[in-house]
């Protein structure tokens, strides 16, 4: 019985924490969508499809999924040089956007969970703050 109660509480806590995180992620994505519309859409386009050979796609992007830290660094400090995304080489330049760490976390959460992308862990302001040039 004790074990059951213990497991029950663990279960409740887990569900509670999940329920708690879900709105956090959704809220972050909502703010991130506004940042995206403001700073990113003119090149990466509305569905994250990008422009082949010019602006790398964000939708279903292997680079984004496999290089989380480098992706955040790119948004934070800018990006220049060769980059292979879904088998295609890009050699462009993205200037730093001047976003605050919290805004970068929001836009990353939006990108990582839109257009077929899915990420298990939410990007936090602290995670962005720790990434250095």
């Amino acid at each position: 019985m004790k074990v059951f109660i213990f497991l029950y509480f663990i279960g409740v806590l887990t569900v509670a924490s999940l329920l708690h995180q879900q709105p956090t992620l959704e809220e972050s994505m909502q703010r991130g969508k506004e940042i995206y519309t403001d700073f990113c859409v003119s090149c990466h386009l509305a569905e994250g499809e990008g422009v082949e050979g010019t602006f790398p796609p964000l939708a279903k992007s292997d680079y984004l999924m496999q290089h989380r830290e480098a992706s955040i660094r790119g948004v934070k400090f800018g990006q220049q040089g060769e980059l292979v995304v879904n088998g295609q080489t890009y050699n462009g330049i993205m200037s730093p956007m001047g976003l605050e760490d919290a805004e970068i976390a929001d836009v990353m959460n939006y990108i990582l969970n839109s257009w077929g992308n899915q990420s298990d862990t939410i990007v936090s302001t602290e995670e962005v703050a720790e990434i250095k040039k």
Partner: protein
Amino acid sequence: MKNSVLFLSVFVVTLQLSCAQNIENQVNTPSKVPFTPTLLIDELQIPWGMAFLPDGSMLVTEKTGSLIHFKNGRKTPIENVPDVYNRGQGGLLDIALHPDFEKNGWIYITYSSKEGEEKGGNTALVRAQLKDNALYNKELLYKAGPNTTKGQHFGSRIEFDSEGYLYFSVGDRGNRDVNPQDIQKDCGKIYRLFPDGRIPEDNPFVNEKGAKTAIYSYGHRNPQGLAKHPETGGIWNHEHGPRGGDELNIVKKGGNYGWPVITYGINYSGTSITDKTEMNGMEQPIHYWVPSIAPSGMSFVTSENYEGYKGNLLIGSLAFQYLERLVLEGEKVVKREKLLPGLGRVRDVKEGPDGLIYVAIEGKGIYKLVPKS
């Protein structure tokens, strides 16, 4: 089956007809060009604007905020440059010399500035003189307001006309439903000033109550090209449309260029902004681009150095990464050509005092188009 084939052909033809651009909207890459592009200044990140000093040296703005003096193959950073609000499309933007620079030494710069009380930034115009690799006598001539943390549409280009008036542009700052159509507000405008910052008494809205009297024309989205026509002396502008609908305009005193009431473009999401492309009291572009080339920088060719180019208009394309050559008949675009394909995002183009064309390309630097003899 026959019917469906017929139907399909009719459908395809109709579709092609309805989507077809005018002949002027087709662009070709020529097999032969009358120049060889040569990299003159290397290792620049986002060279935004260029100016040519009388001694043959150059000033180049970098978006991130540095001003570079290029002389005898060497780059020297200029000190005491205005602090830029480095967010989104903002930064150190255009640079131009006073037409009488040799006498008065005035240099004009536009940039995104934090000046003001609200959080964020907006476009400012400053003038200063250059001495010992530093700017001094800095005077803020105009600061658009209010500040906003939005990342888009600062403009900005600077041009002088033959009578010595100064024109500069400010984009709509991402607030299209509030700014461009309201002459009591900054942004989405082309302004005209005396070179010392005073507002000309014959500006179009000086007698309108509450109007921003520096405004010369309005209803613009994000103008990043301004050039004086070498023969008529008129000021031409181009501006970024949304998805589709980039425009080439001749700037008229008091003209309303329609954004966002009329446009040939649509939202990035594919939804429509308006179903109107023209309206009484609003100016039509002399040319528009669908799809958008994302135009930046503009120069007329006045020299005979490049065979067949005299009187043409050169415009940078950020989106498709080439230099566009427009052949004109009067005010009509009769041919489009793609130059310098594949070098990178073309941010600015200028004809130098030596009659040669200089092109600023992101991630590369400044190219000089050396004529083939």
